[in-house]
């Protein structure tokens, strides 16, 4: 094994251990499908492995992984006309135990959002990216991103309020 390959291999191990859960979680929350999330995770890490062992330098591995994951998720959703199935998403998330009603409602609201809205919220709220990093991942300007986040939050709030009202009506 050449030195370049050894270095790339070592780098990959570190990246894989640190980000595998976050990439999978991002893909699952974005697509709502465990199979797609699994496929995307495999493909993303295989790609970064090839890059690293071929001697390519990756300045921001986290950003690189999320750009790849996001593109693969969007392509899959576009090609397969993928629609988020709430049952699968719920199953994936409730594996650890029962959720509070407000979390369940918010999960439903999140999955009723357009994927473009959903991705900005996931990147911001779950992954904790800065606006600069998000703009790089989503390939947009910071003012455009600010606007997208505002619109996404407003739509999520509207859907959530509607679901809460419907839930309250069912309870009565």
């Amino acid at each position, binding site marked *: 094994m050449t030195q370049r390959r050894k270095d790339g291999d070592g780098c990959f191990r570190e990246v894989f251990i640190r980000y595998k859960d976050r990439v999978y979680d991002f893909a699952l929350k974005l697509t709502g499908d465990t199979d797609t999330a699994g496929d995307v995770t495999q493909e993303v890490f*295989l790609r970064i492995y090839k890059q690293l062992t071929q001697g390519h330098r990756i300045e921001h591995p986290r950003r690189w992984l999320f750009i790849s994951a996001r593109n693969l998720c969007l392509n899959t959703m576009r090609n397969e006309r993928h629609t988020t199935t709430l049952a699968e998403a719920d199953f994936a998330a409730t594996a650890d135990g029962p959720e509070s009603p407000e*979390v369940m409602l*918010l999960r439903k609201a999140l999955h009723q959002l357009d994927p473009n809205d959903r991705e900005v919220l996931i990147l911001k709220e779950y992954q904790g990216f800065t606006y600069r990093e998000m703009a790089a991942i989503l390939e947009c300007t910071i003012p455009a991103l600010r606007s997208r986040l505002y619109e996404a939050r407003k739509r999520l*709030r509207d859907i959530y309020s509607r679901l809460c009202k419907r839930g309250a009506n069912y309870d009565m």
Partner: protein
Amino acid sequence: MTCDDFRRLISAYRDDEMEADDRRKVIEHMRSCDSCRNFAEEIDGLGDVLRKLPPAPCPPDIEQAVIEKIQAFDQHASEKKSFWNGYYRIPRGVAWAAALALALLIIEVTVNPFEHKGDEQSPSIPSESTPYVQKVVFSEYDVVYSTPVTDMHTNN
């Protein structure tokens, strides 16, 4: 600025992604506008609940699949390499001999330095006894003059 403009800023204010000047404006506006203050509280609440959604860890079978894919990639890469290594295993003496033979062959075909000059068809010098016939053909319509050398001698 309208309330809608302020709400765009409130979203960024909440993320702590704002210039100090805009921050001051937002804080001042929220002091006087109940509707925008409510909006800020609502998106704060939604953000808090969103962060409560449990993260989904990468399942072990996906981890294993990644490792297997990488091993397959490595194996494929090493197979490609060993294909070339097969050629490197030829003994050095044989390789040099083959290279020399190839070089000689190329020289023979292109430059041909060993070619024997005598093989070329040089004009033969007629001997005294050989009857010599001169033939000059210009074209198919021209007359062909042919005169035996012996005749020429006799005419003189």
